[in-house]
């Protein structure tokens, strides 16, 4: 087990290293000069230009040799210094990100967990009943082929604008300030439901289909046939099948994390939800390079940590990883 986890950690550390290097390298090796680009967008006074140019050159680190730039980058990173935002100067990138993070997590974590749980349950049920199967399959395929932002827009249009049941943007009403009160909590949930639904539904479709297929596969396996031949009740066989089918689903969860995060970003934008998504859009539109780089690193780290957590969960659930690594026969 330890060897298994250790191997994973090596990959993650390596990936982090690669990601940071990419992050550092891209602005330096892309055609065009980012500093020039920034200045052009700002239409600054000619007198201010020189000062700005000097500042940015230093901020990017272009004034020192390349290898030093790289080391400085790492040094700053390990201190948690991601630089200062260009559009929101002098707020630091870290501040902006940490301010937006809770909202993104509030959407992502429940969406991922609930869609995984519900999708697997429904998928397993669909593998049992033909009638349910005939509904779940087409619905699942349509859902999983749906772009999340589009679903967000449609949900907003139907439930917020047409029916008026939910608000169409923001995480909470303008006249409220975040506080640990019931009123705020209710308002928060009210704003949260539609973006959550957009993420949940698409992911749900995929898990349901995947689980349904996995269960069918497990029910055809030799051990299932053996138990059934010996008269074991379907409940027992299904229990084994579900347990075994869950394993590749968990692996799949780890693989799908990148896509999940992407979905959260675009959905947030649709609902102007003050999370990392909206932050990213603003950063892109304003060419706030430092913010973009910071978000990128943050996303990577988050995904790596999540992957690791999932790996641990997998080890806990699949007894074979524990035995195999203990040198069993």
């Amino acid at each position, binding site marked *: 087990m330890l060897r298994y986890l250790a191997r994973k950690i090596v*990959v*993650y550390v390596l*990936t982090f290293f*690669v*990601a940071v290097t990419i*992050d550092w390298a*891209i602005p330096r090796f*892309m055609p065009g000069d980012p500093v020039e680009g920034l200045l052009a967008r700002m239409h600054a006074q000619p007198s201010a230009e020189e000062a700005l140019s000097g500042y940015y050159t230093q901020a990017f680190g272009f004034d020192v040799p390349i290898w030093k730039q790289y080391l400085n980058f790492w040094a700053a990173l390990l201190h948690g210094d991601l630089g200062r935002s260009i559009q929101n100067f002098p707020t630091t990138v870290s501040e902006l990100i940490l301010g937006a993070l809770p909202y993104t997590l509030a959407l992502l974590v429940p969406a*991922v967990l609930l869609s*995984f749980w519900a999708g697997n349950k429904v998928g397993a049920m669909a593998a049992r009943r033909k009638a349910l199967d005939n509904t779940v399959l087409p619905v699942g*395929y*349509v859902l*999983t*082929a*749906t*772009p*999340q*932002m*589009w679903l967000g*827009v*449609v949900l907003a249009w139907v439930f917020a*604008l047409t029916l008026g049941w939910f608000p169409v943007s923001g995480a909470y009403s303008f006249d409220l300030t975040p506080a640990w009160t019931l009123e705020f909590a209710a308002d928060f949930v009210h704003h949260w439901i539609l973006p959550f639904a957009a*993420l949940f539904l*698409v*992911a749900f*479709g*995929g*898990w349901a*289909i*995947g*689980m349904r*297929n*996995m269960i069918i*596969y497990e029910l055809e396996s*030799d051990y299932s046939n053996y138990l059934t031949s010996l008269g074991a009740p379907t409940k027992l066989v299904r229990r084994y099948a579900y347990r075994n089918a869950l394993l*590749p*689903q968990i*692996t*799949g969860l780890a*693989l*799908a*994390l*990148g*896509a999940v*995060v*992407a979905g959260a*970003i*675009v959905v947030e934008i649709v609902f102007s939800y003050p999370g990392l998504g909206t932050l*990213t*859009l603003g*950063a*892109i*539109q304003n*060419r706030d*390079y430092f913010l973009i780089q910071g*978000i*990128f690193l943050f*996303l990577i780290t988050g*995904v790596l940590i999540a*992957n690791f957590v999932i790996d641990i969960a997998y080890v806990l659930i699949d007894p074979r990883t524990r035995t195999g690594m203990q040198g069993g026969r």
Partner: protein
Amino acid sequence: MALSRQRDVGAGAVPQAGLATIGGPVVTAEPSAATGGAPAPDRAPVAAHRSEFLYFALRNWKFVAGLSVVLVFIAAAVLGPVVAAHAPLEFNGPTDQPPSSDYWFGTTSFGQDVFSQFVAGLRAAFLVGALGGGLAWLLGAVVGFTAGYRGGAVDDVLNMLTNVVLVIPTLAILIIVSAYMNVHSYTVEALLIGLTSWPWAARAVRAQTFTLKTRDFVDVARLSGRSRRQVITSEIAPNMSSYLLMMFILLFGGAILIGASLDFLGLGPATSVSLGLMMNSAFLSSALVLGSWWWFLPPGIGIIGIVGGLYVMNVGLDEVFNPRLREL
């Protein structure tokens, strides 16, 4: 088990959360007919396979349904721009009009014809899907075959590479690259997508290659002195042909979805039209608030149609290639 479904590959995550295992048991391994039971390295089944394939394929309603939907959209993409009365970016029409006989899908806030934008967007979608999916497929196949066949140190290195690229969220990389590099064409966008979405394909191909590698017909080929490349291309690959085809379809669909997200974020080419970009401008122009459903609905429906059709086609193909799944 006669069929080896590579579950421990992690079953292929298509870049849409939750679809992780659609690439798993849905995409099964060996074409039934082939050399599974044959004692001799028999290549004839591949040919007999083709006519049998057509017979069953056309009778599988999922395959036919999915294919029909995709064909409809292909037709729209090919003929639409020809038939469209207005150029997609031409903005001299009345703004925010619902569908009418003059503007079949209505107009945008800039007075552009939504229909012509839509069919132009379909073209872009197919381009990105084919190129992006194709590149990912090619890279995945090359890395997968090499790692699976060579094994040993080569496998370890490639594995590490695959895992690293796999973990990094595609969109994150694309955001950062596109931020610095103005993407000027869909070809470039497709290239970027292809370069970042190959890992799960590589994993799947590698696992399959491992299984096939131990088969007798491969040994015979090797013993008769064929080069590594020859063994891969003429012995192993044909036996995985169904699997490779289905993988391509999944990658095609996935590329379209990623492309749409990129365009929606404003990271795609700004000068042409795509479905994602349509959604982007619709959103930014408050089409939602204005209630211009004709503007923001069609792009999504287009994507659902194409990608959903492809997925359903894939399921049908799986049943065709894998007789055990064929229902009575």
